[in-house]
């Protein structure tokens, strides 16, 4: 003879919870991820260097040098006072320009000032061209380094300064290569004018 027992159904809510809880975690996780993406600030690559050529520093010291070079100081006296003064003004201008744009040229400046002093003191020394060339090298290098760091658009101008400095022959008397020296000062003034 047959027998058929019955029993109470097992409650289904534990199974629902079992499925619901992980589902809620998954949904929450997706929502958190979604919110993170919504709130994420898009990183925009910006230049870490300001375009300084568009900024007019108008530094007076730099201005003084440019004015000095462009003020008809076409002569170069025998005692080389003018050359020395030009180098000193250029040295100060490079120093001031470096301060304006936050570039360290202290070592170069010190070396250039020392050379300018030597030129002033030994007006008749035949080694003047050596000193002028050395000072030109130091200052043109400082200008070029500053240009590469702060004024990438002025690479041609910086290269011109460097090449005119290199054109000064250290074995030739300064008075015999006025044009080369003047050219160096003018190119330096041109570069500084654009930087300033």
């Amino acid at each position, binding site marked *: 003879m*047959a*027998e058929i027992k*019955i029993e109470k159904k097992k409650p289904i809510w534990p199974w629902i919870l079992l499925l619901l809880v992980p589902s809620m975690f998954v949904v929450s996780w997706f929502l958190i991820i979604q919110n993170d993406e919504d709130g994420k600030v898009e990183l925009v690559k910006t230049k870490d260097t300001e375009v300084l050529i568009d900024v007019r520093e108008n530094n007076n010291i730099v201005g003084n040098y440019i004015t000095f070079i462009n003020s008809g100081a076409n002569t170069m006296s025998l005692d080389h006072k003018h050359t020395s003064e030009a180098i000193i003004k250029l040295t100060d201008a490079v120093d001031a320009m470096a301060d304006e744009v936050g570039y360290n040229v202290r070592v170069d400046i010190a070396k250039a000032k020392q050379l300018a002093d030597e030129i002033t003191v030994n007006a008749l020394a035949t080694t003047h061209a050596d000193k002028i060339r050395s000072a030109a090298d130091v200052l043109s290098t400082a200008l070029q380094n500053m240009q590469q760091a702060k004024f990438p658009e002025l690479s041609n101008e910086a290269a011109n300064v460097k090449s005119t400095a290199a054109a000064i022959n250290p074995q030739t008397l300064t008075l015999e290569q006025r044009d080369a020296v003047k050219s160096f000062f003018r190119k330096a003034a041109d570069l500084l004018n654009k930087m300033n």
Partner: protein
Amino acid sequence: MKDKNKNLYYLHELSDYKVADEYADVRDWEVIDADKRTIGKVDGLLVNKEADCVVYLDVEVDTSLIEADHETYATLANKGMHEFLNEDGENHLIIPIGMVTLDEDNKKVHTNQINYTTFAKTKRFKKGVDLERSYELMVLPHYFPDNKFDEEGTQDNHFYHRKEFNPPS
């Protein structure tokens, strides 16, 4: 059917109950009588909650069985049986679970103690009707004419402890 037996329910009415896992759910199984004839199919299970088991199979009978004896069932006066008049639409009857065996392989229910004629002349009811103890006491003596079903002792759930509802232990 005035005396509603509140301890007899269709299993599908009890949404929190089901056939126990180790037992067969015989709904829709074919019902075969002692003459190996099909009398219908199991349409529902009538359960007693206190006994936690099925006590009757609710069988939807074949139309052939209804046609076999559509009108009346003449009782034998000396057995105390009554005449049953089945009306149109009354096509369900109950079979005590203790009277059947299950062929689980072929999904068939066998009633080896009751023949086709007996089923044909059994009082039937319409599908889904709440069954009362009075109906049970009308049908059971028809199936078991030699058994005694007096009114006393048949009003509570203990009624389903009878052998008609339980397999021999």
